């Protein structure tokens, strides 16, 4: 299976999954994102890096229109998923979000059992024909999020009683369970220990064979490890975007260089 995905990756590398043009986001008067142009490729992991508050989460939330829920937020410009404008009036944000899954920066498990947390997406999207299939999806997703062993005996307990890191992995499992085409992950590993992080990174690598993954991370190392493309944001601007290796080894912009070498924040 792995061989195949490698092969696949090679051929589909150049498909553009998401393309953003001149995206502007305002929170009330605050201009939080300025003129962002970016093409995110299919079956690729793209990392967003940049100092805190630069607009990474904001841009992520634009892609699956989660910004719709913030009354003050206003988005301009164009974001296309498979060539279709996601802000088109005919687009149903629900269908969009089913295709573009998301893991949030703050873990937000539902006040339900662990099982129901993970089964929520498959249930609403009708991904399982019966209970057995659902069980399978839940187990697979929890395993993928490196949580299965810790919770397999307490699937019926509330997800809110887990430790911070466990909650975050639960949210990852929940997002994976719906099999989206694109997975947006906002600092998925920030609350995780190195081993869990490694497992999640492995999962991301595996997911890449099927979806496009966008990950926000503060860890340069992680970006280097998991991503093929990296975008660097600074003060609401997308400063530089390119092959991960290039960004980390030969950044074009002085700000990127400064950030990578630890000089600006």
């Amino acid at each position, binding site marked *: 299976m792995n061989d195949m995905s490698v*092969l696949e990756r090679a051929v589909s590398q150049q498909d553009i999954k998401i393309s953003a043009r001149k995206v502007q986001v305002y929170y009330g008067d605050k201009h939080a994102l300025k003129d962002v142009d970016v093409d995110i490729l299919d079956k690729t992991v793209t990392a967003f890096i940049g100092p805190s508050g630069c607009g990474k989460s904001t841009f992520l939330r634009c892609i699956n229109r989660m910004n719709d829920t913030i009354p003050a937020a206003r988005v301009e410009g164009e974001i296309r998923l*498979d060539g*279709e404008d996601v802000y088109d009036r005919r687009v149903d944000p629900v*269908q969009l979000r089913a295709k573009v899954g998301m893991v949030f920066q703050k873990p937000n498990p539902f006040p339900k059992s662990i099982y129901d947390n993970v089964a929520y997406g498959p249930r609403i999207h009708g991904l399982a024909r019966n209970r057995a299939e659902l069980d399978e999806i839940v187990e697979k997703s929890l395993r993928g999020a490196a949580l299965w062993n810790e919770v397999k005996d307490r699937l019926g307990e509330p997800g809110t009683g887990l430790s911070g890191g466990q909650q975050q992995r639960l949210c990852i499992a929940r997002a994976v369970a719906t099999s989206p085409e694109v997975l947006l992950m906002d600092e998925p590993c920030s609350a995780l220990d190195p081993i869990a992080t490694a497992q999640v990174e492995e999962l991301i690598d595996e997911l890449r064979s099927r979806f496009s993954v966008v990950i926000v991370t503060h860890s340069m190392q992680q970006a280097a490890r998991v991503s093929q493309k990296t975008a660097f944001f600074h003060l609401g601007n997308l400063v530089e975007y390119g092959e991960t290796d290039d960004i980390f080894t030969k950044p074009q912009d002085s700000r990127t260089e400064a950030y990578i070498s630890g000089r600006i924040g």
Partner: protein
Amino acid sequence: MTDLPMPQNPAAAQPAQKSSLLSQDDRTRRRNAAEKRFRSYGAAAIGLALAALVVLMITIISAGSGAFRQTYLSIPVALNAEQLDPEGNRDPAEMSKVLTLRYGSVLDSALAAAVENTGIQIEGLSDREIKGLISREAAAQVRNRVLADPELVGQTIELDVLVNGRVDGYFKGRVTMASAARDANTSPEQLMLADALAERGMLVTRFNWNFVTNPDASDQRPEAAGVGVAILGSLYMMLVVLFLAVPIGVAASIYLEEFAPKNRWTDIIEVNISNLAAVPSIVFGILGLAAFINFAGLPQSAPIVGGLVLTLMTLPTIIISTRAALKAVPPSIRDAALGVGASRMQSVFHHVLPLAMPGILTGTIIGLAQALGETAPLLLIGMVAFVREFPGAPPEGLFDPASALPVQVYNWTQRADPAFIERASGAIIVLLVFLLCMNLLAIWLRRRFERRW
């Protein structure tokens, strides 16, 4: 899906599994339909509630707006000294022995003279019908004026007197010639006379402040009845409720939700409080009679007792909504406050309470609204009463007899003269205005406190 044979042209393989965002698949369509339905249920629910409100409002206002207008007759009245001051010494003490009945006859002759002077000729008009044109209140009106200024006796003064309720109703469309024909208390002739007087500008219908400022009047004088005493009584009671129920309710909720250990006792208290909400309001009246009047010796018919009873009655509403609001504040806020070294008391008063404020205010609004419109418990403590004297200023006034707005409504709807039905609706309008004033403040406050986290 990964088991598929490797496609040569990936683009060709994609459409099979990829759906366009612009076209919805079946399931999405169904879910969106469900979403639309759900949303329209919500809109329909609001629509229904608002429609009910509008219908009720229209009913109330169309029935009650008449109470705010009143017809007056202005006639010259010769104050006959022989009748009004038989002793002739203009001594108010002596003159006060003359009853209103005597003044009635003075008015009768003044009226007859006035009608004659205008030269109005109406077929079959009897003396009784001419006399009946004006309210019985008029005599009292004249008497008060004369006693206040005895020198008036012997003079002829121009007087604005209330007309009879039926005639007044005629000018407001409540009474018609057809109904008057059947009515023992008026007649088409009387109405024709009134029409003729109105043409000459002697009868005018104008805005009626007296409705808001007058006290209640007896069954024979609907045109003189007002809600003055009732407004004061309701105001006093609401003050008592506001100053007792809200602090006590909020304090009790804070204790139960934030400090009380969660054990069987607090369960009992919780059940007990929601059960108190189900106790019929009249039972609070029974309690008020037993505890405040018979045991504590507070006076009958006093707003203080009414306020106390209503306080007990509204407490559960306030406590239940406050507790729900406190419960809804996320624990992380409390943690945050405790983490910087705030005491539990401080975390509650500085953070939790402000965040729970919208819910508390909602409970307060609903509780007060309910208290303001309640009659049943007041039945037993003597506030469902005919009270003509205004209570004094608080705090002593709290112990004076008074009625209340809902009581006035209740009383008036029971009276025989149909003119009181209009008054009752008018009183309801006053009550709603009262309620609105009370709510506006709370709603404004609630808006300031509302936020999502």
